[in-house]
C-alpha cells in the first residue's frame, strides 16, 4: 500500500498539469480580461488605456450618446421580435412535421440548412433580395404592380425589421429541430387517451404538449438569446448600421468605438453594460435549473 502512494501522487500531478491550460484560460482570459475591461470602463482611456479613475463618467457619457440609446432600442425590438417569431414559427413547423408527413427528412433538412450558413452570407443574401432597385420590390413591380412598395432596408423606421426577417430565416429551423426532438419524447399514448375522451387535436397540443415542451423551449430561448446579444455580423453585412444609425446594435457600437473611433473607455463601459445584461438573463435561468435538479435529487 505504501509503495503505491508516491505513484498515485505522481498521477495526480499529471492531471494537474493537464488542467493547466484550462486554468490559464479561465483565470487569464475569462476572468482577467473581464476585470480588465471593467477597470478600463472607469478610466478616461481614449486610444490607449490610462490608469486614472474617473468614476462613472464614461457610463454617463454612454447613456448620453444617441448612437448607444438607438442601439439599445434596436436590440430590444430585434430581440423580442426575433425570439418570438423564431419560437412561433419553429413550434408550428415542428408540430406540422410531427404529423407523420411524407418527406419529413427532406423538409427538416430544408428548414435547418440556413443555420449552417454564416451570418455574413445571410446578411448579404437578404441585402441583395431587399435591394429596392433590383430586388423583390423591382420584381413585383415588373409583374404588373407598379405601385408596390417594399424598401424597408433603406427606410430608417423599417430597417430593423429587415434584420429580424433575415435572422428569423437563419435561426427558426433550429427551434424547429429542438422542439421536434422534444415532441418525439412525448408519449403518444397520451394522444390516444385524449382522443378517446373526445379532446380536439388543438386542445391536446395546447394543454398537454405545450407544457411538456417547457425544457425544449428553455433550450431554444437560451440559444436564441445568446445570439441576440452577440448580433454583429449580420448587421455589418446587411446594413452597416444604416441608413444613418437606424440599425445600430450594441455589439457594433462597441467594435466601432474600440477600433475606429478610439474611445476605449466608452466602449468598455458599453461592454460592461452588455455583460451585466447577459448576467441578468443567465442567473435566473441557472437558478431555476439548479432548483429543478435539487428537486429531482430529493424526489
Amino acid at each position, binding site marked *: 500500500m505504501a509503495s503505491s502512494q508516491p505513484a498515485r501522487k505522481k498521477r495526480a500531478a499529471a492531471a494537474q498539469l493537464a488542467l493547466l491550460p484550462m486554468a490559464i484560460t479561465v483565470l487569464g482570459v475569462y476572468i482577467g480580461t*473581464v476585470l480588465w475591461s471593467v477597470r478600463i470602463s472607469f478610466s478616461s482611456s481614449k486610444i490607449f488605456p490610462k490608469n486614472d479613475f474617473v468614476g462613472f463618467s464614461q457610463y454617463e457619457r454612454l447613456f448620453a450618446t444617441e448612437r448607444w440609446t438607438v442601439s439599445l432600442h434596436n436590440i430590444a425590438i430585434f430581440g423580442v421580435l426575433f425570439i418570438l417569431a423564431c419560437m412561433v414559427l419553429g413550434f408550428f413547423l415542428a408540430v406540422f412535421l410531427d404529423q407523420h408527413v411524407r418527406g419529413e427528412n427532406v423538409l427538416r433538412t430544408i428548414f435547418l440548412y440556413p443555420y449552417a450558413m454564416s451570418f455574413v452570407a445571410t446578411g448579404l443574401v437578404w441585402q*441583395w433580395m431587399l435591394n429596392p432597385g433590383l430586388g423583390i420590390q423591382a420584381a413585383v413591380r415588373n409583374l404588373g404592380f407598379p405601385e408596390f412598395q417594399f424598401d424597408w432596408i433603406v427606410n430608417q423606421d423599417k430597417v430593423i425589421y429587415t434584420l429580424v426577417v433575415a435572422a428569423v430565416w437563419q435561426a427558426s429551423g433550429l427551434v424547429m429541430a429542438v422542439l421536434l426532438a422534444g415532441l418525439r419524447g412525448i408519449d403518444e399514448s397520451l394522444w390516444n387517451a385524449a382522443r378517446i375522451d373526445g379532446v380536439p387535436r388543438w386542445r391536446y397540443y395546447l394543454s398537454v404538449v405545450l407544457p411538456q415542451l417547457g425544457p425544449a423551449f428553455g433550450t431554444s430561448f437560451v440559444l436564441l438569446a445568446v445570439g441576440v446579444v452577440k448580433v454583429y455580423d449580420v448587421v455589418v453585412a446587411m446594413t452597416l448600421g444604416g441608413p444613418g444609425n437606424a440599425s445600430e446594435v450594441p455589439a457594433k457600437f462597441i467594435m466601432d468605438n474600440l477600433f475606429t473611433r478610439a474611445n476605449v473607455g466608452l466602449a468598455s463601459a458599453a461592454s460592461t453594460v452588455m455583460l451585466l445584461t447577459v448576467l441578468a438573463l443567465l442567473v435566473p435561468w441557472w437558478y431555476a435549473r439548479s432548483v429543478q435538479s435539487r428537486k429531482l435529487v430529493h424526489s
Partner: protein
Amino acid sequence: MSAVVERITPPVTAPVQRKAVHRKSHFTPARLGLYALLVSSAAFFLLPLYVMLITSVKPMEEIHLGRLFALPSSLTFEPWVQAWSAACTGLECRGIQVGFWNSVWIVVPSTIASIFFGALNGYALSFWRVRGAGWLFGVLMFGAFVPYQVMIYPLVRTLATVNLFGTLGGIVFIHTVFGMPVMTLLFRNYYAGVPIELFKAARIDGGGFWRIFFQLMLPMSLPIIAVAVIMQVTNIWNDFLLGLVFAGRDNLPMTVQLNNVINTTTGERLYNVNMAATVLTSLLPLAVYLISGRWFLRGITAGAVKG
C-alpha cells in the same frame, strides 16, 4: 476488450424516430392544408438559396432588368470564375480563393487544438481529482456566455505584447480559447457516461494519466470527436468577428474577405459575382451540414441542453 468498450460506449444516437404506425393513407382537407403550409414554408426557406444561385449565373445586363426570381435566359459561369480568382478587395484582385485558403489554414489547427483540449479537460474532470477543478469548470461554463466584446480589447493588448496579434498563431489561440467551454462540456458529458469501473480496471493494469487518455479514452471517443469536428469546423469557418480582429491582414478568413468584396467595392456592383462569392463561402458549412445530418444538431444543442 473491444467488445466491452463497444457495449459500454455511450450511444450517440439522434432522437428516436417514432415509427409511423398510424399513417393515414387517405387525404383529408386538413391533411392537404397541412402539406400546403409545409410546402410554402419550405419555399420561404429555399427562396434565398434559389435567388443566390440564379443571380450568380445571370449576366449583369439581365440582372439590371430587375427580375429577381426569373430564371436566367442566358447562362454564364463567368461570375463564378471571377468570384473565385479575380474579385477585388481594395486594390488587390485575386478573388475569394485567398480567403478560402486562409480559412482552411485557420480552421484545421484551431479545430484540432480546441478538440484536443476539450477532450483532455473532459477526461481530467471526469476521472481525476484535482483541487479547484469543479470551480474552474463552473467559471468556464459561464465564460461560454460572456460576449466577445467584453474580452476583445484586453486580448488584443495581450497578444500584441507577445507579438501574436495579427498572426495565424494568434487567431488559432483565440479560437482554441473560445472553443474551450463548449468542447470541454461536450467531452465531460460524454465521459460521464463511461463506467468508472473501466477506468479503475485500466488503473489496476498500471495505466497512467496520459496512457489511459491516449490509449483508452481517445479511441473510444470517436463518435463525440466526430460531433466536435462538425461543430468546430462550421463555427470557425462561419466566424467573422474574431477573424476580423485577430487574424491580421495576411490571414483574413473567407467571411471577412467576402464582406470586403461586397461592401467596400467602388464602382459598378457586380451582383452576380457577389452572389457567386457568397455561395462559395457557404459551400463548406453547407456540405458539412448535408453530409452530417442529425449529428449536426447534436453539436449545437449540446451546450445548452446539458449545461
